[in-house]
């Protein structure tokens, strides 16, 4: 069946490119770790998946050793466990942020594009205003106002992120709307709702999906960055990569590993995500499909 062939083709193109294949595998690896950590942490040697386990008897960071694979960070927290647990937290929040943002964005964008005119104008002005503040300072402000927990932070990030998707989805929807098949559908009596759901949204989803995959890496970074500059102080023992880095900050010079390991964890994920995103974009680009 044709649609199945399409998916197969996409995957084939994806895997023909070594880098994007690698990206996919790494991302899957992270997801797997997160899942295991959520259901059966002991399997990967994590004692407590939901909070770091401090050891005040020996708070000074220890170099990597057999019982502390990545060494320890202040206050005597086993870095390996912390990082693994943190992967779960960061992945979860990033996915939620991106998906929520995309959902709102697509809704607004597509509707704006379809009922163009005044309504469109209003919506686009609003998104413009949201986009008129660089997202990091904006997120700081919103997060600060909402409260400095992780949930508030991710809410803040959603508020900052959706306009990007709205803008993007609108652009896509507008070009799709121009196609004759939309008009043909109207001429054969399909209602607005039917056109949006049957014709526009399905065609918008693909490019937006690529955008999501490209953004995930960025969101993970931003999320960690915000915790790094002092969010999530509400729960001092929550394992989170950015927070781990900022905890290790004072010891960076004497004990480099305390910042290196969490940082590398973010870096690898972001690289993998970007590779995957690029691969997907190429794979779904019609020019590369023939």
């Amino acid at each position, binding site marked *: 069946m044709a649609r199945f062939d399409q998916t197969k083709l996409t995957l084939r193109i994806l895997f023909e490119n070594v880098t994007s294949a690698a990206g996919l595998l790494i991302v899957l690896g992270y997801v797997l770790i997160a899942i295991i950590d959520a259901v059966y942490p002991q399997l990967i040697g994590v004692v407590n998946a939901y909070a770091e386990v401090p050891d005040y008897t020996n708070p000074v960071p220890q170099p990597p050793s057999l019982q502390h694979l990545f060494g320890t960070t202040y206050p005597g927290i086993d870095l390996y466990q912390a990082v693994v647990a943190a992967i779960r937290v960061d992945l979860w929040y990033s996915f939620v942020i991106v998906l929520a943002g995309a959902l709102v964005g697509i809704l607004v964008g597509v509707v704006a594009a379809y009922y163009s005119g005044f309504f469109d104008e209003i919506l686009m002005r609003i998104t413009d205003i949201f986009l008129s*503040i*660089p997202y990091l*300072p904006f997120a700081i402000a919103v997060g600060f*106002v909402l409260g400095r927990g992780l949930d508030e932070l991710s809410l803040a990030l959603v508020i900052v992120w959706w306009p990007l998707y709205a803008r993007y989805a609108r652009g896509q929807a507008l070009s799709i709307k121009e196609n004759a098949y939309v008009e043909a559908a109207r001429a054969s009596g399909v209602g607005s709702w039917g056109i949006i759901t049957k014709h526009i949204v399905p065609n918008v989803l693909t490019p937006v999906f690529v955008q999501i995959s490209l953004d995930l890496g960025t969101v993970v970074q931003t999320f960690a960055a915000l915790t*790094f*500059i*002092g969010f999530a102080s509400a729960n001092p023992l929550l394992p989170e990569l950015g927070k781990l880095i900022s905890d290790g900050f004072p010891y*960076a010079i004497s004990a480099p590993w305390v910042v290196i390991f969490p940082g590398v964890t973010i*870096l690898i994920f972001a690289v993998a995500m970007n590779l995957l995103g690029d691969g997907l974009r190429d794979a779904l680009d019609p020019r590369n499909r023939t």
Partner: protein
Amino acid sequence: MTLRVYIIRRLILVFPTLIGLTLIVFILTHVGGYQRFLGEYVNIHSAIPVAVQEQRLTQQFHLNDPIFVQYFYWLSAFLQGNWGYTQTPIYSGTVLGAIGLFLPNTIILAAFSSILTIIIGIPVGVWSAVKKDSLVDHSTRIFSFIGYSMPVYWLGLILIIAFASPAVCPCLNIFPISGSVNIALTNNLSWFTSGISYPTHILLIDSLIHGRLDIFVDAALHQVLPVVTLTFSILASIIRVMRSSMEDTLNQDYIRTARAKGLRQGAIINEHARRNALIPVITLTGYTIAGLLGGVVLIEAVFNLPGIGYWTTEALISGDIGGIMGGTVIFGLAFIFSNLIVDILYGFFDPRIRY
């Protein structure tokens, strides 16, 4: 539509955005009652008791009236330069005062890195697109990928480790890793107190004004690591965009026409492809600038540079609403106006846009 008309129209379009920016800030201060708002405008250092101040403010800003009335009064105060007070470990006083002190350093940092980015990023992007699939191309792509995915503050830390940790190599201890100048040089200077220099607040200039070359050199050295870090973080995305847009351009019909006309490779790239390829890059500059400003916040925090970002983070940690809002407004304004300039450039680059 001539270019002038286009520019004027673009200038007019700035106002709604400005209104929106202020509106957002205003609403943020009012989420859950106006207590936070009062917090911003009460000056705890003044002799007048807080209760009295709050009462006055309630009258001045008509805090008991409908919200849009309040917005109006707040806006007028805002335009008259009454942005409230900030109490942070590094500065305590009016918000505008803080901005006056911290902004110059930030501008320096941002300016240096943007210039570097442009003079490196665009040629490299063009080059790797022209030499597609060559070694050059692949290495630039890898570089841009990593740069794109690297948390900028973490990169800063790594550099700090590299240049300061005895574990690495003492030979690397050339660049200072923290602050804007070596305190030893500057203690009991009349024109330099608590990280802020006078009169211009830009140490690189002030040191020359006061004829202290040693301080100038030291300050310059202090700028190196932050600038490098920030540049690295935005360079990647510029190269990436430039490369892909150049690649598209080279596949256009008019490039084929140029080849059919017998133009030499150099002429095709420099005279036909580059300008077209720059247009999408310009459109994407907005996001790059956003990244730059975000990067500033983190980098100043990492390297303890007394700039807006540093101040904002301090405010965040010490829960100071004045600092947060002030920072947001300033970043917003910076963003809006840099984008304005970009759009006007765009008008120069693309004749089609004027019609």
